[in-house]
């Protein structure tokens, strides 16, 4: 019970930390909107040429664009979440301060990242989506249950996203330059989350693999839940399985890294 309050406080702190940077948020909203516009017109051109590409009609494709823009910052698809800070703390040795605290490293950062994500969902997600809905004809569902299922899928996707970035950040214990790993992971995120193009449009083995990788839990899967293109339960199972597996891997890596620091020195 006391533990829950600690991590709730950490999450609240994560929320407020990002809320303090208003100019950055405004700039982010602007970027997402511009990026959304570019993608929207690209998609229109594509779907004019090939209607029902990837199984979506044009309204669905445009919905895909604006939802994925709304989720871009939330999911830290391209990085830029807690991991840069964690990598920096590992590099400078500040991680020592985190280690003597009576708190769990992974849960601590997860709580902070969930707080950040909630802020970015509200601060950076809503405006681009509303703009998209006003400027284009979107296929948004009317059923609140579908929205609820979508939010659950977003939460699960977020945990997967966190678990990936946690693993990447911990690599800094072994790599000289942890930020390189983070950039590589960001690149994978951009493509395999389905942020540029829905993964459904990729044919053959590439498509199969892309859809099976954990990054698809970040954007492709939640959007498909919203569009009614994927089974809700199946999506949750897919996301949940990746979340559990990657969090467990993070725990193992964390204990190896901690032992290494504890035995070897920072």
């Amino acid at each position, binding site marked *: 019970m006391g533990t829950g309050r*600690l991590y709730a406080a950490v999450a609240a702190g994560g929320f*407020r930390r990002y809320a303090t940077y208003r100019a950055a948020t405004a700039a982010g909203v602007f970027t997402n909107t511009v990026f959304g516009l570019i993608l929207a017109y690209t998609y229109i051109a594509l779907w004019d040429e090939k209607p029902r590409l990837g199984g979506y009609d044009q309204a669905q494709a445009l919905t895909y664009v604006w939802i994925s823009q709304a989720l871009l910052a939330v999911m830290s698809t391209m990085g830029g979440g807690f991991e840069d800070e964690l990598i920096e703390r590992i590099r400078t040795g500040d991680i020592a301060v985190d280690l003597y605290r009576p708190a769990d490293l992974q849960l601590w950062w997860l709580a902070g990242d969930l707080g950040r994500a909630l802020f970015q969902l509200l601060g950076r997600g809503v405006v681009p989506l509303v703009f998209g809905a006003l400027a284009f004809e979107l296929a948004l569902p009317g059923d609140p249950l579908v929205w609820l299922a979508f939010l659950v899928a977003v939460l699960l996707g977020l945990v997967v996203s966190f678990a990936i970035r946690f693993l990447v950040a911990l690599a800094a214990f072994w790599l000289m330059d942890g930020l390189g790993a983070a950039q590589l992971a960001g690149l994978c995120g951009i493509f395999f989350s389905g942020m540029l193009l829905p993964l459904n449009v990729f044919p053959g083995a590439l498509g199969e693999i892309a859809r099976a990788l954990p990054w698809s839990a970040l954007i492709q899967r939640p959007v498909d839940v919203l569009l009614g293109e994927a089974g809700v339960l199946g999506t949750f199972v897919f996301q949940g399985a990746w979340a559990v597996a990657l969090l467990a891997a993070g725990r193992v890596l964390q204990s190896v890294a901690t032992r290494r620091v504890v035995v070897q020195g920072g």
Partner: protein
Amino acid sequence: MDDVDGDGGFIRLDRVEKVFQVRRKTGFLRSERREVRAVDSISFGVARGEMVGYIGPNGAGKSTTIKMLTGILTPSGGRLRVAGIDPSRERTRLAHRIGVVFGQRTTLWWDLPLIDSYRLMHRMYRIPDARYRANLDRCVELLDLGDLLDVPVRQLSLGQRMRGDIAAALLHDPDVLYLDEPTIGLDVISKARVREFLRDLNAERGTTVLLTTHDLQDIEQVCRRVMVIDHGRLMYDGPLAGLHEAGESERTLVVDLARELPPIEAAPARVVKVEGPRQWLAFPASESAAPLVARIAAAYPLVDLSVREPDIEAVIAKMYAERAGEYEGMVS
């Protein structure tokens, strides 16, 4: 009674060692393993309520010792207990008993107001509400944090941040406070404030304080006992005053005579400098100055005099230099 550990030390180290494996590249794909003894068989005990200074040059093993005492480093050998707890095995349990301040690191939340970090400590250490409020009020008053609580940590000056960090380390009423370079980079006023606070803390709460520093004034003004470490070994452990004897230091007697005279003869003192009617005499710090002065006054036209205490930094530098000589002798 987990505090008393057989021989009574609240903090107890028995032949504690820390050996690091350092890999050095010697060629393409080739590397050489070397062992570095950061801490080499150190033993000491600290009683409850003591304030101990831990000094030594860079790389002497000070921070390594502190890290072992907090449990974030495991000793390679020897036995280590803090409040009866083996730090590296029960790091989390120990965390509730200790407070740590690393001068060059911060535990505070960078982007958020200071108070947010304290609220987090409140939850993290599960401090009862009333105690949290009382401790916070006390720290705010004594460390003068009242106007800073709502300021984001990134906007604080170094001295303000340090006071903020010290408060953060004390909200859960730790029995032991470790401070690693708490005054580094601070201005004179901030330093004085930190030292005064530590003295009060120890006097009122009986908090055991172990502090590492480069600044000998920290030791002089805060600690009754000092330990000197170099090359991972304990070279001195005792009262600050005893360092003078250990370092065979000398005091200086400055005498002003009525006129220019040849160098005074007054063994065991010897003249080290003459400037007109003023002469400087060095004599062992262990000797009393009174008989010496009496002898000089009897034999010479004495106008004025002053005694200068040895510079403690010089004493320690001398100790290090002697040790370094020994080491080189050992190697070659």
